[in-house]
């Protein structure tokens, strides 16, 4: 079992590293400019010249996929930072203050957690103009509840432990106990939650861009390339296939790593709901 865990962590992490390298080295790896149109060679099948073929304006899909990795990963990572930040803060506040504040925060988290985020995001993006920062903001602001629940649960659990009692006995303030003793111990679960936030964010960005509400053309993202390809499914399979494949690979790698990390750190993915809310 141990070996299996480590192998999924290993494979996931290797894949992630590969994708990050692709994103960073996109200008070096790309065979063409992602924006360069070439109307004489539109909708070309994959060949030595164009590894993943060309799109409806003759742009090189391979190069666009590489540059798309930058947008997708940036959105995924920034949205995750936001989610984890908000979630940690609110989780700490809920467990620290308790009472009414706890109830308000956790009920709110309940709703955001189970509300179809696509619908929420759809509404928000329809209200404002679609833009990349809005996509990040919206995804980040809908992803925090799982983190908040987790942090709150961990803090409540750890508060009972002996080392907190002894710290309190030594005269440590609440603030010191939370920041010095509780938060570092809750870091493992938070790390796992963060790893699982990334694929969700990447998937949401792709879905939004596919619906035309996310990152706008001509900036290449995997989602809006799929949208672009929608009209050409009959004639050009490569047009839709490769961008989607990279969404899948990205999401899969983070899920693998998250799963591996969770098992390696011995954190339970309990099916039981957090009842003390």
């Amino acid at each position: 079992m141990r070996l299996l865990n480590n192998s999924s962590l290993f494979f996931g992490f290797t894949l992630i590293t590969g994708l990050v390298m692709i994103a960073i080295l996109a200008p070096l790896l790309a065979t063409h400019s992602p924006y360069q149109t070439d109307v004489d060679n539109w909708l070309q099948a994959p060949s030595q010249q164009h590894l993943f073929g060309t799109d409806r304006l003759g742009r090189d899909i391979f190069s666009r996929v590489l540059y798309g990795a930058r947008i997708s990963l940036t959105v995924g990572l920034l949205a995750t930072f936001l989610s984890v930040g908000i979630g940690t803060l609110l989780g700490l506040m809920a467990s620290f203050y308790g009472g009414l504040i706890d109830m308000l925060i956790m009920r709110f988290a309940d709703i955001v957690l189970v509300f179809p985020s696509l619908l929420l995001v759809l509404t928000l993006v329809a209200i404002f103009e679609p833009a990349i920062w809005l996509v990040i903001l919206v995804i980040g602001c809908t992803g925090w509840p799982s983190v908040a629940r987790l942090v709150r649960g961990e803090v409540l659990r750890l508060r009972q432990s002996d080392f907190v009692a002894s710290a309190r006995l030594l005269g440590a303030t609440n603030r010191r106990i939370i920041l010095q003793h509780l938060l570092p111990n809750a870091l493992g679960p938070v790390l796992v939650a963060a790893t699982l936030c990334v694929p969700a964010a990447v998937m949401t960005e792709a879905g939004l861009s596919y619906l035309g509400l996310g990152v706008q053309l001509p900036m290449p993202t995997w989602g809006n390339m799929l949208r672009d390809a929608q009209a050409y499914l009959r004639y050009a399979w490569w047009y839709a296939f490769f961008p989607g494949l990279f969404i899948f690979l990205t999401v899969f790698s983070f899920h693998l790593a998250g799963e591996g990390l969770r098992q390696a750190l011995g954190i339970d993915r309990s099916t039981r709901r957090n009842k003390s809310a």
Partner: protein
Amino acid sequence: MILSLLRRFAQTLLVLFGVSAATFLAMHAAPGHPLQANPELRLDPTAVERWLQLRQLDQPLLSQYLSWLSRVFRGDFGDSLLYNRPVVELIAERLPSTLLLTVTAFCLALFLAIVIGIYAATRQNSWLDRFVCTLSLAGISVPNFWFGIVLIILFAYRFPLLPSVGLRTPGDGSLLDILRHMLMPLFVMVAGNFAHYVRYVRSAILDVLNQDYIRAVRSRGLQEKEILYRHVLPNAAIPIITIAALSLPRLFTGAMVAEYVFGWPGIGRWIITSTMARDYPVIMTVNLYTASLVAMANFLADALYLLIDPRTR
């Protein structure tokens, strides 16, 4: 116990109220109005003003919200700005085809997940278990819209076996025809949901299998089959039901996307286009409807817990 359920219910209502107010305010506070959603339309300003006046969209926000709220309590959800017909009517028209797809997908996915989840959990770490785990991890990683597109490329174009869009061929309403149209969207939805459910079923069964009372029963010499059906399943049922209830919103979102990809004439597709067109009454109704659905699912899950599991009382 009843008291805590009631309190929970009151809290839920409060949250619903908050969601509706927030959606309403955000929607209307944003600059512009539905007629500007399409920039290519050049409209006569006086006509626009009249249009807004007719729908009371020129009133102060608070009074708009209050009048909306009072109408909702009387069961009037307003008329769609796009179709000029009651929102409820529009929903009722599209609901059957959405339900056909989602209910079928939900039942199939859950059934398969329970059967295969049990199979995998009772053979933990066998190659089959590992296969199921990897498959489900891959399943939750596949973007459903892309999966749909790949199916269309394969089975509608490369090997033209199935129709790529719609619910039925015009002029042909036979059951077989509808089934043929349903096959691909259904497969996309079942696959995605199955991948989610099977992970939970497997870990719920494993949770129970590792309990002391199962060890005790086993030491009494009961047959594995009997242990599974008499002791493991009833105990694992609680978390499974919870997960199924809590997954309803995700099911809903998945249906939206599947309907969009396959041109299925249901609620989901209509919601996406209406939201983009800023059809206020539709957005409000759908959000309220979904929030209620979510809140109900949450509440039901809690109630079930209290009913079934004495430890939570």
